[in-house]
């Protein structure tokens, strides 16, 4: 187990380093001078040159890369070109929206997706199964920004139950902050819930035909009892993997959903930073996202090993 964890952990660190290198290199390849971009078309060449110097763009790339990595190890992500504030501070300020948003969306997708999947599996081939699967297929097909728009039109414009977007900080009014996250979490959760429902259904259907279910039935359990006691737990393994992978999609989804609902989250920060060529902010925020995603993968792997002893033994 220790060896397994260690190996996973080294993989995690290497992934991060490679990702950092790729991000740095790709953004460095982008054409255009960030200093000119910040100052616009009426700036004098002297002020552009001065800003280039201030931004540290005169230093060769390898040196800047090492400095960047070294700074991040000490928690220093650099200072944003456009907002003139430390990147770490900017990112930290946005987590109060993106983190709850992703967690809500995750919870909704599990709470809605798994029971629907189980229900469909239990009624396999019946009309309910068909309906659930059609709904799930539609849910996967609908882009979440569009679904978000539909939600706004219904609940904010027509019914006026919920705000169409925007965010009141938690410390100011927790009720309003929560209300502001309801529609975006729903929009974000829909495709995830649909995927989970499908995976859960398939996994459970697979499991139901396994020998151990038959054995359980032979020992006198009803099919429902057998599936519940032995089936669901085994079917959860593939679901767990998917759940880990989905986190990455959720994070990507926040970029779009936060813009549709004008929420001050990390996704919106990144989009603005890209549009304004704030490379240091883009790099910092991307690394944080990669860290979050790879850390989730690592945890999923470890959790998987805990749930499934076979995996542990084989890798060790």
């Amino acid at each position, binding site marked *: 187990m220790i060896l397994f964890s260690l190996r996973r952990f080294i993989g995690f660190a290497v992934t991060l380093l490679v990702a950092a290198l790729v991000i740095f290199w790709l953004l460095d390849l982008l054409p*255009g*001078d960030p200093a*000119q971009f910040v100052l616009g078309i009426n700036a004098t060449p002297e002020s552009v040159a001065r800003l280039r110097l201030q931004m540290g763009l005169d230093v060769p790339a390898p040196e800047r890369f090492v400095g960047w990595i070294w700074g991040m190890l000490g928690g220093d992500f650099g200072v944003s070109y456009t907002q003139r504030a430390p990147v770490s501070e900017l990112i930290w300020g946005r987590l109060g929206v993106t983190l709850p948003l992703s967690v809500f969306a995750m919870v909704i997708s599990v709470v809605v997706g798994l029971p629907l999947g189980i229900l469909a599996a239990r009624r396999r081939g019946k009309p309910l199964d068909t309906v659930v699967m059609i709904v799930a297929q539609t849910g996967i097909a609908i882009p979440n920004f569009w679904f978000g728009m539909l939600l*706004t039109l219904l609940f*904010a414009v027509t019914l006026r139950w919920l705000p169409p977007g925007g965010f009141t900080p938690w410390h100011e009014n927790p009720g309003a902050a929560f209300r502001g996250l309801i529609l975006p979490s729903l929009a974000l959760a829909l495709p995830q819930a649909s995927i989970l429902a499908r995976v859960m259904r398939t996994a459970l259907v697979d499991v139901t035909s396994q020998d151990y279910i038959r054995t359980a039935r032979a020992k006198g359990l009803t099919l429902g009892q057998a599936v519940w006691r032995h089936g669901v737990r085994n079917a959860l393994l593939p679901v767990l993997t998917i759940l880990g992978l989905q986190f990455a999609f959720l994070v990507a989804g926040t970029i779009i959903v936060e813009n549709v609902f004008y*929420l001050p989250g990390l996704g*919106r920060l990144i989009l603005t930073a890209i549009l304004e*060529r704030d490379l240091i902010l883009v790099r910092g925020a991307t690394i944080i996202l990669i860290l979050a995603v790879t850390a989730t993968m690592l945890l999923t792997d470890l959790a998987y090993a805990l749930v499934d002893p076979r995996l542990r033994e084989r890798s060790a």
Partner: protein
Amino acid sequence: MNTITKAIGLALALSTALAGVAMAQSTEVRIGVALEPPTLDPTAGAAEAIDIVVYQNIFEGLTRIDEAGAVQPGLAESWTISDDGLTYTFKLHDGVTFHDGSTFDAEDVKFSFDRILAEDSVNAHKEFYEPISSVTVVDPLTVEMKLDRQIGRFLFDLGRGDAVIVAPESADNNANQPIGTGPFAFLQWDKGSRVILEAYQPYWGEPVHLTKATYVFISDTATLTNALLAGDIDGTNNFGQEALGVFEGNPQFTILAGTTEGETILGTNNRKAPFDNLKVRQAMAHALDRQAIIDGATYGYGTPIGSAFAPHNAYYVDLTGTYPHDVAKAKALLAEAGYPDGFSATLKLPPLAYASLSGQIIASQFAEVGIKLELINVEFAQWLEDVYTNKDFDLTIISHVEPFDIGNYANPDYYFGYDNPEFQALIETLNGTTDEAKRKELAIQAQTILADDAVNGYLFQLPQTGVWNAKLTGMWKDSPIEGLVLRDIRWAE
């Protein structure tokens, strides 16, 4: 099912009551704007988004620009100009305080201009103020400025967001905690979300009608539409023309269609053959059908222009008839210039909706006279590098959004490379003239030279189309200077 719906509705209604949502009261306003400012210091950045929030609301200058683009007294209640036009003496308003309670006086004026002119100044338009050779405090309410050469539009430049008066104690923190003398004081900035201003009670000037103004940052047009329809915001200063149809004929909203300072041009590389040939440029001008471009790119809201000047300006002269749309004439001119079969060229387009839409229309209009355009879409940073810095382009489309930017044509190194000594001398005379009638005459001459020379293709003035709650009044229709001035905005009884 019905009970469940009701229960959810009740629960949400209850939480609405508890949350006490910011429904617009009679003295508060929530305004949606597209871009969030990077900082809130207008003296340290070129971004228009800064001025939208702070200009004339939080910060004020010695003069201020009104809705018609004219200069009005600001913190200076009056001024005298010496006969040689080199010494300006400003009489300052008495009883003005900054939002932190400190008193405004001549020392603050001196500090603000010394700061603009300092070696390490980060002011985006330092060049406008560089002719100032000294700022002297005569007494607490009198300031004398000496210039080393005449600048005809000096009083206008003093009214720009770049020249607002800041206090020495607070200037360094203005980026995040702006403190000015304006009718609205900064209350709070939730980064990524909104900026809240509240009326400053001991304001020295005419009291304003609003008690609170919230700027909400929404960049997507569809989202903005929903926010307006749901009543989350009471208006927006510039709404995408393509979606205005939603609000046309809706009695709850007013559409304010006006102009901005943005002259949209078909930027032409005058250094390069065949565009260095006047006949070719004239042919291109004849090939352009402005109305079709305006209809296609701005949904009819743009105003046609015939030179590099804003139609709402007092010095404007209508030159749109200089080279009317005439395909036969365009072909004849091309033949005279030695291109009877036309030629091929590239059109580099920045990622702006008006540019890509205009580009396609122009390409088809040019095709009719035999000019084949290859459209190249580039990212904005790439556009800056290729077109603006390296001048590596044939044609481009861009809007020049600064007030009085006709002076760019006197710079032969500017990207379109127009080098006309006669024009350069004219601009120099214009800059050195303070007499209004004389200035107007010179400005008209300058516009006419550019139109005759067909330096660039002059397309249209970028429109500003605000959508506002029908009960709101006092918003500016035109935008002669970057800003969204809250001073006169009020709810109708």
